[in-house]
């Protein structure tokens, strides 16, 4: 019995020795090239990429401290395509991923050709925005990301976070069309047109002066209301009701509509509005010259909001602006009347503020046909580098896989050689002690 156990022990020692020798031989045939692991994105990764390309290891594992550059990521993907099993994880977090960072830049349908930048990043982070001309500003990211409107950008826009950078370029150009203003002749019509024209919109208008006569501007009485002619329609009062059916069709086909003040109360516009306008409330006397001039304007608060309506603005607890989608188009409803008083009677910046308010209201709904623009800027990175990393290399490696790869890396050659020698020595000693040859 003891003899049999002794023979089994000798066989086991021989097996361990042969396994160690086989591993040593395998390493000798593919020394260091058999596997690879590097930490971080810097020169170490650059060197490793060159080495792995030359040596074609079976596995390569990268521990990223930050999102890799598109060059490094593409290179790793190419290694993967060539047969190397590439895996990655966040440095210091076994199997962990990196914080997400994404950026989107889109043109805004405004005559000043501004762009809107939307950034997704971890809450409370402060990515830095810059374009090809230099730094623009830092953003404070809330739970839902961050949004910034920029009057214009030079080349590509990038957001630099603590774990990498995302970059995007404006790809579309928008073709704005006329804005149609419908209402009665009056100060609200007049100053709405003025605000829009001063902002750069091309305005057509039909303003009723008497039952038989209107003042027409920009061919408004001849041009059909459709998206090939108009980016938005503004209905200021009940005079627009006669064209409510045409306007509804226009909105459903993608057009934008601003229902201001009294117009929202017109039954003909009921299917389009975001909510029901309440009874008219007068503004606070003198408040139009205060810090918040809107408090001095008469308004019809928006009540009984539709389920698909979204509140855009409130004054105290009253909804003053709401929007909804109708078909392919958008409708924004404003509660304010006589906004011209803001422009005329408000304090210093009232003229610009009134202009901007109308500009925003129209830009929020305006239809603008998009056309691809020839690339005018070199895109320096990816809009969503983490998504691109996942797309090209898959998710971070599971801890088991990593441990396996690590184990292969951790057992040094001298240990394997020693193990083989020890196993052979034990087998030899055992055989000699029992008198075997």
């Amino acid at each position: 019995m003891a003899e049999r156990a002794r023979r089994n022990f000798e066989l086991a020692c021989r097996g361990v020795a042969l396994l160690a020798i086989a591993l040593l031989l395998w390493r000798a045939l593919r020394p260091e090239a058999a596997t690879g692991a590097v930490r971080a994105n810097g020169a170490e990764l650059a060197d490793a990429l060159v080495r792995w390309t030359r040596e074609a290891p079976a596995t390569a594992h990268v521990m990223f401290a930050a999102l890799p550059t598109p060059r490094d990521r593409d290179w790793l993907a190419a290694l993967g395509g060539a047969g190397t099993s590439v895996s990655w994880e966040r440095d210091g977090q076994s199997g962990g991923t990196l914080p997400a960072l994404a950026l989107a830049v889109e043109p805004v349908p405004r005559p000043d050709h501004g762009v809107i930048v939307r950034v997704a990043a971890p809450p409370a982070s402060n990515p830095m925005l810059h374009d090809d001309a230099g730094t623009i500003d830092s953003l404070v990211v809330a739970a839902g990301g961050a949004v910034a409107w920029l009057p214009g950008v030079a080349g590509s826009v990038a957001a630099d976070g603590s774990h990498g950078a995302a970059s995007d370029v404006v790809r579309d150009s928008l073709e704005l069309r006329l804005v149609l203003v419908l209402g009665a002749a009056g100060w609200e019509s007049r100053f709405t047109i003025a605000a829009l024209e001063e902002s750069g919109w091309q305005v057509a208008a039909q303003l009723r002066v008497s039952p038989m006569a209107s003042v027409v501007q920009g061919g408004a009485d001849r041009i059909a209301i459709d998206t090939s002619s108009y980016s938005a329609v503004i209905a200021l009062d009940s005079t627009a009701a006669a064209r409510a059916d045409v306007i509804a069709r226009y909105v459903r086909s993608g057009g934008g509509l601003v229902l201001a003040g009294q117009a929202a109360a017109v039954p003909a516009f009921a299917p389009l509005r975001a909510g029901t306008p309440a009874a008219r409330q007068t503004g606070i006397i003198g408040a139009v010259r205060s810090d918040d001039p809107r408090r001095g304007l008469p308004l019809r608060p928006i009540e009984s909001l539709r389920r698909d309506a979204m509140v855009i603005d409130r004054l105290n607890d009253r909804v003053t602006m709401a929007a909804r989608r109708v078909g392919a188009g958008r409708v924004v409803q404003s509660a304010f009347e006589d906004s011209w008083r803001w422009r005329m009677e408000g304090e210093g910046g009232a003229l610009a503020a009134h202009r901007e308010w109308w500009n925003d209201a129209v830009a929020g709904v305006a239809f603008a046909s998009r056309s691809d623009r020839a690339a005018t800027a070199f895109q320096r990175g990816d809009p969503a580098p983490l998504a691109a990393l996942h797309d090209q290399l898959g998710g971070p490696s599971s801890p088991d896989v990593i441990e396996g790869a690590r184990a292969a890396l951790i057992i040094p050659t001298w240990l394997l050689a020693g193990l083989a020698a020890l196993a052979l020595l034990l087998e030899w000693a055992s055989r000699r002690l029992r008198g075997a040859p």
Partner: protein
Amino acid sequence: MSEFVFATGQYESGDWDSAPLVPANLIDSLARYTSLSVAPSGAIVPLGSEALLRYPFVWVTGHLPVRFTEAERRMVRTYVERGGLLFVDDHNHDIDGAFHRTATEEIARTVGPLVELPNDHALYRCFFEFPDGPPSTSHELNGWGDNLVHTHLMAVMHEGRIGVLYSNKDYSSEWGYHPDSKRFLSVDNTRFGVNLIVHALTR
């Protein structure tokens, strides 16, 4: 929607109230020809007061020399920048009278030089048609004043719109009668006044 209020500008110098019947007459014409919401009586607004900004159309007239105070200059400048339209009519209907010389100087100093308004401007066709430009007044045709028929109105333009409109034609006399007397006219001579206000309310 707020109603249109016909406002007469009151200034410190001169005789700003020299044509007191004009507001009622033009208000009557607006009510006759249009469906605009019009206040039944006019308002008087000091040019140096912030109340000026409540009335985007203001009528100014007089015979005597005009000198704006600093407050009046400041407010008129703001008024024009914000988009108001000041209509200034020379009640003397001449080009060498005290009102004309001083008023044009004061306007130039306050908001910029006056230029001729083309006779094909939208003002002349926004409601009634005036293909030859501003209608002549009986005072011009009778050879009163400077014995000239003024073929153009003058204007200071701001952002492509009329900021100040200036007339030598003496519409203050032409329209200065009780509205009931319109029935004695073969053609209502206040029709151009309607155009003035409709233009202000639409452009």
